[in-house]
């Protein structure tokens, strides 16, 4: 616990030059599996409030780091066999509430360009917060999620079913939808945004506007905005090119 060994008196204390310091940092980033130093855009002043994704990821971090002392056993169970967990916050939200007879839906688009190469997806989930519905809706609601595989100009887009959750109109809390099945396509065309479409129906099959059902979108408070979380497993430990 004391300070590290003092260099023997004969050893000159050498300060690193700026270029050596940069090389050293680059080397450490490579060990951390990073191509370079990330430059996150400083959140606008108003966005200082804690956001849903970092809050969720911080819980995950404490769960993972807390298990370090028990050397991994329960950690492995808790986080599957993930080496990397990524939460995607860049999202465009489209609301579609056409005429009364048309189905209502909410669509979310995610930028996947930051997905690291060489990592296999072990699980992916879409998280959206639900408040108790303020409208006199049937007690039971069915929330279904689809991937938008291809958009069509003159007709409905091609959709791929991902998950269905049943809940009550009065429920409150985070709704977790499993979107792992959509990840097969990500790895093929990484630079295409991922589109996820969400429908809400009553027990007797009527389409309900997700907002009326109490599902919060981008306009919700930052700590309750929807986001996506993906768990990756390193397919092979990245061999660092020797410098």
């Amino acid at each position, binding site marked *: *616990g*004391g*300070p*590290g*060994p003092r260099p023997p008196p004969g050893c000159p204390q050498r300060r690193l030059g700026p270029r050596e310091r940069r090389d050293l*940092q680059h080397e*450490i980033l490579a*060990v*951390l*599996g990073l191509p370079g*130093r*990330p*430059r*996150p*855009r*400083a*959140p606008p002043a108003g966005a200082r409030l804690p956001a849903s*994704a*970092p809050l969720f*990821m*911080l819980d*995950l*971090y404490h769960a*993972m*780091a807390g298990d*370090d002392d028990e*050397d*991994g056993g329960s950690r492995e169970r808790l986080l599957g066999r*993930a*080496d*990397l*967990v*990524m*939460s*995607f*916050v*860049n999202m465009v939200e489209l609301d579609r509430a056409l005429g009364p007879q048309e189905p209502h839906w909410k669509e979310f688009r995610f*930028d996947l*360009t*930051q997905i690291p190469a060489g990592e296999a997806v072990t699980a992916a989930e879409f998280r959206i917060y639900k408040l108790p519905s303020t409208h006199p809706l049937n007690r039971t609601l069915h929330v279904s999620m689809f991937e938008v595989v291809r958009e069509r100009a003159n007709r409905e887009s091609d959709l791929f079913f991902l998950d269905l959750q049943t809940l009550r109109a009065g429920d409150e809390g985070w709704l977790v939808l499993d979107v792992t099945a959509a990840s097969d396509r990500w790895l093929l065309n990484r630079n295409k945004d991922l589109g996820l479409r969400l429908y809400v129906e009553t027990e007797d099959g009527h389409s309900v506007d997700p907002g009326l059902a109490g599902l919060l979108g981008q306009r919700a408070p930052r700590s309750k905005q929807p986001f996506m979380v993906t768990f990756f497993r390193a397919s092979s*430990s990245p061999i660092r090119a020797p410098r």
Partner: protein
Amino acid sequence: AVRPLKRRLPKKTNELPQPNRLPGIFDDIHGSHGRHVCRRHELYVSFQDLGWLDWVIAPQGYSAYYCEGECSFPLDSCMNATNHAILQSLVHLMKPDAVPKACCAPTKLSATSVLYYDSSNNVILRKHRNMVVKACGCH
């Protein structure tokens, strides 16, 4: 020729310290030339010192530790020596110029996790294996 006086070899004590007794203050934890025996030392990697706290959310740094110390025969049990290391340090005694001493190196490593923003402000949690020394020994 006058027969050189036989040098009295120092009496070798064969007793080894109790297996799990860490060297006490009166034990000779100094190997030859007053150096320390092989053991784990504190090493703190500070992301603050690296100037990275604008994108690393947690931790601010972590104790990575490092191994340093002498692997001198007899390698007692608190040095986690492999059989090969014991053999090598014995042969080193006989041929010090030909065979080096065994090395003090990590025998158990564990992972550490880092939570950070990427350039698109996505939040990433990455587990890095073999980043923390849990135990050292002679190899």
